[in-house]
């Protein structure tokens, strides 16, 4: 990395017994940045967070805050506070005692503790709940107490381990914004682990997608969403529809071969490496347009293919169709419903179509390869 960051991870690797959990993690985080570590279960995101917090020692690599090497410092000497998925509040202590514990450990005088705890309660909207035990609080309130306990010791970096995953769906939406606003107000650096794509998109300045212990891609939410670097990232960011196609590079365009699904169309290479041969095409259901007979003349730009409607459902706002195209079944949204059995043409615009060479999927991509180097 370029070394300009505030929190620097260099070549972090971690193994658990014989299993390599993290490999070659390089990450540079600016002060005040909100970074989301996004990935599916078992991708190593929580291990990475625990490595940062000092609960897991990396098998190689180093962690720096500024010029300070913190790789082997104990958890409490790192200036980081961790908010746990289960909140990890102590059931035998009241809200105030939970929040005050970190200050008590630091030997802060009692009057100062009371003032700080009271200020933290006001900041988090917990006024009047100071004497309650955690069992007498709602999920959202517990989450805020856990946050207060972490923030009251003025950490340089706030680590969040899926702090919203135990909340009701409706509360979660509000808390996302509250948490983000609080982070911006305090100007604190935050690293947030989540498996929820939307949560990461809404909250973070930068998203780091982890796949099997490696960084698959990192960048601003819109970059990762619109220019996925690998098929994994494309699928994880919602482009679950998959078609196997063939194509030829012709000048600065990639022309798709018809194949079994009578695919037509081409996309501009736009300076990206994509070789002639087998490709996998990925796109989101909402990016697919079902063409009526009237506009039978398929647009040249993008991908158009034939298929048969198998089923149709209404998830809200649009009709979702299951369309069989050759050996694959894909999902396509449309403003009106088509009947099962109907033959349709499906069009995907060039912007929303992600093509990857099948032979070496990680290297060749329609999306901008430099996406992985983004330093927001």
């Amino acid at each position, binding site marked *: 990395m370029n070394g300009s960051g505030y929190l620097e991870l260099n070549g972090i690797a971690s193994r658990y017994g014989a299993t390599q959990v993290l490999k070659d993690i390089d990450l540079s985080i600016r002060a005040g940045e909100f970074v989301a570590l996004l990935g599916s279960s078992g991708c190593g995101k929580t291990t990475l967070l625990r490595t940062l*917090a*000092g*609960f897991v020692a990396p098998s190689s690599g180093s962690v720096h805050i500024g010029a300070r090497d913190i790789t082997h410092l104990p*958890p*409490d000497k790192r200036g*980081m*506070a*961790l908010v*746990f*998925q*289960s909140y*990890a*509040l*102590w*059931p*035998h202590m009241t809200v105030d005692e939970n929040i005050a*514990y*970190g200050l008590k*450990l*630091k030997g802060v005088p009692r009057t100062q503790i009371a003032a700080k705890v009271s200020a933290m309660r006001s900041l988090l909207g917990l006024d009047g709940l100071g004497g309650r035990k955690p069992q007498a609080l709602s999920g959202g309130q517990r989450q805020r107490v856990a946050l207060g*306990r972490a923030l009251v*010791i003025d950490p340089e970096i706030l680590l969040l381990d899926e702090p919203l995953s135990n909340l009701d769906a409706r509360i979660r939406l509000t808390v996302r914004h509250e948490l983000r606003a609080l982070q911006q107000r305090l100007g604190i650096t935050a690293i947030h682990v989540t498996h929820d794509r939307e949560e990461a998109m809404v909250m973070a300045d930068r998203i780091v997608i982890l796949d099997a212990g490696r960084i698959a891609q990192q960048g601003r939410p819109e970059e990762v969403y619109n220019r996925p670097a690998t098929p994994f990232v494309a699928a994880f960011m919602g482009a679950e529809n998959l078609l196997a196609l063939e194509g030829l590079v012709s000048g600065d365009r990639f022309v798709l071969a018809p194949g079994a699904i009578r695919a037509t169309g081409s996309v501009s290479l736009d300076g990206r490496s994509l070789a002639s041969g087998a490709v996998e095409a990925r796109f989101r259901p909402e990016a697919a347009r079902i063409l009526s007979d009237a506009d039978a003349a398929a647009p040249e730009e993008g991908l158009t293919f034939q298929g048969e409607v198998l089923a149709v459902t209404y998830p809200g706002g649009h009709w979702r169709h299951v369309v069989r195209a050759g050996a694959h079944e894909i999902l396509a949204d449309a403003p009106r419903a088509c009947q099962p059995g109907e033959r349709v043409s499906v069009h995907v615009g060039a912007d929303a179509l992600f093509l990857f060479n099948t032979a070496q999927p990680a290297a060749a991509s329609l999306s901008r390869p430099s996406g992985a180097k983004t330093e927001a």
Partner: protein
Amino acid sequence: MPRRLLGLLLVLPALAVIALLFILPLVMSAVGAFQLDGGLGLGNFAKAFDLYLKDILFSVGIVSLSTVLIGLGAVAIGGYLTLGAHPVAVTILRWLYRWPMFIPFIVVGQILRTFLAKNGMMNNTAVSLGLMGPIDAMSFLDWRGIVIAFVWKQTPFVALLVAGAMASVNREGIEAAVNLGASRLRVLIEIIVPQVTATLAVGLILSFVTMMSVLSVPLMINAQSPTMLTADIAFRVNAYGDYGVANALGLISLVLASSVAWIYLKISLRERA
């Protein structure tokens, strides 16, 4: 036959066993404690307090001290099993600490008698190591011997209960405290122990009641005066055939034991409120 009667019939054997073998003897000895030659009265209790007040206090003191030491030992063992950083040491401790549980009290008494006596193994070892001269050797076969026997025998039982409860304390809660800078001792005292107090109390109360009823250890280790109530009861019955005073002493130890249980009940009711 009506269904309810059938159900009653099914539990009748169990009820009968409890009534005949437990409740009836209990009631009879309770009544026996008040029976005098010329009718009912408190004479047996007067005699019991007159002769054995010292032993009553001795018993309460010994068992209370043992309970405190057992609690400390159990918390220390459970704490090391939960927080110990050295996996080999934790495994060895986990394997070793339960052994005394499987040794009967009478054997514990026998082992400690040969170990703690004036010319026992403890003193012999200390002398041969040059830690003290043979003249300084002294016997531990008094109240100290009883306390050592009780603590040695009962700590594993309480530790087993407490370690189980500690293992189910939320790990993230422990990590949260470490993250904020708590030392391992503070984590144990301020985070873990408060969350297992109910289990610890149950273990200690069961131990208290068990120790109140042990006869073999005081007989083996400390048969002189003052001794524990159980030895006195045995003595009244075996030497004098004096069931009245023996029953009175039995009732006194029952009251002592149940007072502890009552304290526990009060605590658990307050916690639930």
